């Protein structure tokens, strides 16, 4: 057992990180872990932090998983390991300033001070520049670990000061094995979930455990079957947006209320009391953050739906071209074959392009409903 067990399908990256933690010559003070969403960047970064602190046990070091340093890091309670995870659209400049203050302090318990920034891509340029200074001349004991989807997602100035570690898309078999081990799901369900999730670990776990998630995904794919004309397309787009809204709401509502209650308590405002005017800006700040988070979440859910649709048309193309490849959507083989028979490979590629365009537009802040309408229209049967 070690802290690396859950970083599945990343043997090469793990070897690099592990060696850095155990051999001083292989160490450097700033790292950039990149990999597609759900490939395990965050898990790898945490494991690396643990390995850096690890004091070893039973002759094993570099993240033994049993020593006090390892267990507290993995539990998120190690005082010298700071993890910045954001589900907001951007990391605020003030957060980064605080972080730099933290980075300057000597470690209290561990050998090093480790700062992990998940989603380092979600920073404005100005914020990145503040961070840059700290990364350029860090105190000797401090290690920065940044995560981003790809190296292009961070500024070149940051990139050039970090050592890069690239995670790949793990093979579905490795993801399935993890899901079986972690969640006790049967191997068949796990493998079909891992395929459907296209190896996104978090998503595979959700699909494997939650029948509701499987059903929602099936409904998204069903859109491809239901669109017969422009009218259906517009209705389907509307449904996709509504479902995303509902999911975002469900996912954030409870947390929003809790955060609000916590803030009120922190401000010393009792249940049912009104907030004094001078404290209102703080509540407003929180509410703005929460709104941004909901927006982000909704966009992520929509993007996920589009990735699912894309995987469906990829399967269609695979069948149309007669390629001997496992279908991502083996459970929807019937739908895949029908779509394959009803269209040409050229049409399939055009549809995939339309989905890709819609994803870009969503990222570019186009009204989600409109972006999806144009996409759904391109999916309708034509000539």
């Amino acid at each position, binding site marked *: 057992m070690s802290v690396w067990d859950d970083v599945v399908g990343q043997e090469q990256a793990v070897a690099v990180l592990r060696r850095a933690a155990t051999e001083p010559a292989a160490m450097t003070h700033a790292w950039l872990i990149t990999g597609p969403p759900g490939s395990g960047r965050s898990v790898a970064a945490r494991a690396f932090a643990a390995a850096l602190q690890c004091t070893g046990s039973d002759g094993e070091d570099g993240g033994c998983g049993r020593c006090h340093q390892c267990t507290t890091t993995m539990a998120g309670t190690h005082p010298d390991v700071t993890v910045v995870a954001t589900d907001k659209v951007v990391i605020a400049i003030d957060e980064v300033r605080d972080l730099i203050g933290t980075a300057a302090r000597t470690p209290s318990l561990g050998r090093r001070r480790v700062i992990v920034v998940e989603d380092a891509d979600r920073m404005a340029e100005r914020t990145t520049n503040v961070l840059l200074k700290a990364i350029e001349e860090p105190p000797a004991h401090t290690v920065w670990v940044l995560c981003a989807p790809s190296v292009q997602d961070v500024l070149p100035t940051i990139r050039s000061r970090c050592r890069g570690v690239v995670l790949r898309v793990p093979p579905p078999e490795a993801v399935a094995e993890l899901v079986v081990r972690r969640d006790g799901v049967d191997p068949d369900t796990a493998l079909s979930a891992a395929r459907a999730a296209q190896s996104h670990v978090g998503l595979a776990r959700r699909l494997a455990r939650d029948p509701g998630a499987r059903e929602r995904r099936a409904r998204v794919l069903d859109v491809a079957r239901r669109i017969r*004309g*422009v009218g259906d397309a517009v209705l389907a787009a509307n449904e996709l947006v509504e479902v995303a809204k509902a999911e975002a709401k469900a996912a954030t509502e409870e947390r929003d209320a809790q955060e609000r209650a916590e803030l009120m308590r922190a401000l010393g405002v009792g249940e049912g009391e009104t907030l004094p005017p001078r404290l209102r800006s703080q509540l407003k700040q929180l509410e703005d953050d929460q709104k941004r988070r909901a927006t982000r979440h909704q966009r992520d859910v929509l993007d996920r739906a589009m990735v699912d649709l894309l995987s469906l048309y990829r399967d269609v193309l695979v069948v149309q071209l007669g390629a001997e490849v496992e279908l991502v959507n083996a459970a929807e083989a019937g739908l895949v074959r029908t779509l394959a028979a009803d269209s040409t490979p050229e049409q399939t590629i055009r549809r995939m392009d339309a989905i890709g365009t819609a994803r870009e537009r969503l990222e570019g*802040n186009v*009204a989600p409903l409109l*972006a999806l309408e*144009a996409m759904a229209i391109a999916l*309708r049967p034509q000539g």
Partner: protein
Amino acid sequence: MPPAAPTTGRRSGGARKAPAGNVRSWDEPALAPVVLVRGPEDLLRERAVEGVLRLARERDPETEKVELEGATYGAGMLQVAASPSLFGEAKLVVVAGAEAGTDELYADLLDYVGAPDPETTVVVVHASGQRGKKMLDTVVGSGAPVLQCDPIARDAEKADFVVRELRAARRRAEPEAVRALVDALGADLRELAAAVAQLVSDTTGIITAPLVDRYYGGRVEATGFKVADAAVAGDAGTAVALLRHALATGADPVPLVAALAMRLRTLAKVAAIRGGGVTARELGLQDWQVRNAQRDLQRWTPEGLAAAITAVAQADADVKGAGRDPVFAVERAVLTIARARRR
């Protein structure tokens, strides 16, 4: 069996004094064998007819609606339309454009008022003027409910209208928000109604003045509707002229694009209704929206609609930074829409 006496719709308040006789306001619909909807305000006549239809469907959800057009009316059509259907559903016959009716229409109506079918509701819609006066007098004299659709001229009346529209959608607005809406769009009642419909569908909770300002400040949206109307009607010249003027006077292109998108969306939704499987009510569309869209759709092919929506999505991407010339992007979308319509 439906009651013979007129059933009155919920009186939606207002300090207006009820006129004498069975004359009432457009928003106090009643069910009776014959109902007269009268007055020059188009939108209110539509609303009045909708109100009667709503009451009829509350009484009998299967009520079938039949439309007759005054100008093309031929003898005996009313009798056929008003007689009970094969499957015994209740009927509601709307005689539209009675101010420009044929002589046969007036003759048949005169006969009909004397002995109406008690299970059918005939709604006579008469905008204004002297044509058909004898028929009108007879209908009024018979004690039939008369829904009066007087022009809405004063701002207070417009504000009242907005409040009623919101109430019908179970929504509320701050008084300042209502005032802001009337200020921005009061010149055209239909625009005002469309704006309320958009706010209702796009937002939740109480409608506030800042919200209205965001949507309709600077009357951008009013222009947006006009541009969209002209484009959808195939009038490229007018659409582009309005658009250029708006942009030249500093209008933000983003809400202009949103107005185009909304207009086309309604067309597509109504096309879906025609395809079956979904109703206007499920889609939250008002009867008048459906009617207008149906009229427009006569000139639109699915391919044209597809091209138009695709162009608007591209324009939205362009105005939000993907394109180098956002003004041109909107213009191109407007031209694409106008051209996509069938000549």
